[in-house]
């Protein structure tokens, strides 16, 4: 039941984003791509989704201009 509730919540969220015309947000696209991992037949879905939501660069950034995070790497920050 718990997973059912959460899945329906995700569906409602996607509908809400589209209804309000917010699909330009890079995090919306990151989320939709990550959802594909749920269809995998292999164990390890959580790590794969977390990796999709991760910054894979290796060098420290020059300066921390903010303190928070957004949930997915911004493709415009190269």
């Amino acid at each position, binding site marked *: 039941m718990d997973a059912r509730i959460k899945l329906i919540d995700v569906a409602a969220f996607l509908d809400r984003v589209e209804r309000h015309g917010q699909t330009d947000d890079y995090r919306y696209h990151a989320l939709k791509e990550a959802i594909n991992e749920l269809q995998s037949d292999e164990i390890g879905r*959580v*790590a794969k989704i977390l990796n999709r939501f*991760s910054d*894979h660069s290796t060098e420290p*950034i020059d300066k*921390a201009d903010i303190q928070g995070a957004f949930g997915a790497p911004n493709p415009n920050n190269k």
Partner: protein
Amino acid sequence: MVSRTTADYESLAYAGCKAVNEPAFWAGFDRSSGDGFYDYFRQITEYEPKRAAKFCIDHYCWLCINPKEAEDVGLAREVISIIPDFIQCDNVLGIGEIGLNKNSKNELLILEEHIQLAVDHDQMILVHTPHLEDKLKGTKLIVDALNNHSKIDHSKVIIDHVEEHTAKIVLSNGYWAGMTLYPESKVTPNRAIDMLEIFGNENVWLNSACDWGISDPLSVPKAALEMRRRGYDDEYIDDIVYKNPVKFMSQCDKFKLR
């Protein structure tokens, strides 16, 4: 626990909690001077132990300037310079929670200076890893910084906030892994137990997030209940929620349960 009410200590006591350990962390806002940290260190070495003792809970803490405020190198170095004044306090277990937040050059510089401080004063280390998209990269940078120091005893370092994609990086390098539990936003009790099933229960502890956000001091007891629901016996649960953290913290001579 500076961000919690006295009623939270009472709830922990009712749940059977014997001791808490409180890392030096962000105050919910950036402090403006080293003096602010001096007062904060007095709060967690003098006042909080008394508040906890009213409920027969031993209070331990860790000292540092947290990564969120480490971008200001001048302030960070001022804070690092006053830490030795507090290291010998009875309830100080070591240096923490140091680490990274946005994985910047300055944060990394201050992390390295904290590591050197711990080595110079023979202190254990508690490390915070970044959240969300920054966690994977930050965990790798932190492990590299620790591995690059030849005098670090890996068994005396715990790297906290591990998740499914970072736990193996931490454990395979010989460090302890901390799983900080939140009601919903990060690692939940159920996910933590999943990770114990995947990565094993050696050199792992669970801890309840008790910060400024939505968090629950009783997350560890709730994880224990969930373990019981899954059929784990009392001995296994005791290893996870009690013996493992006692084993890690007992490496500091000052850690003594009454």
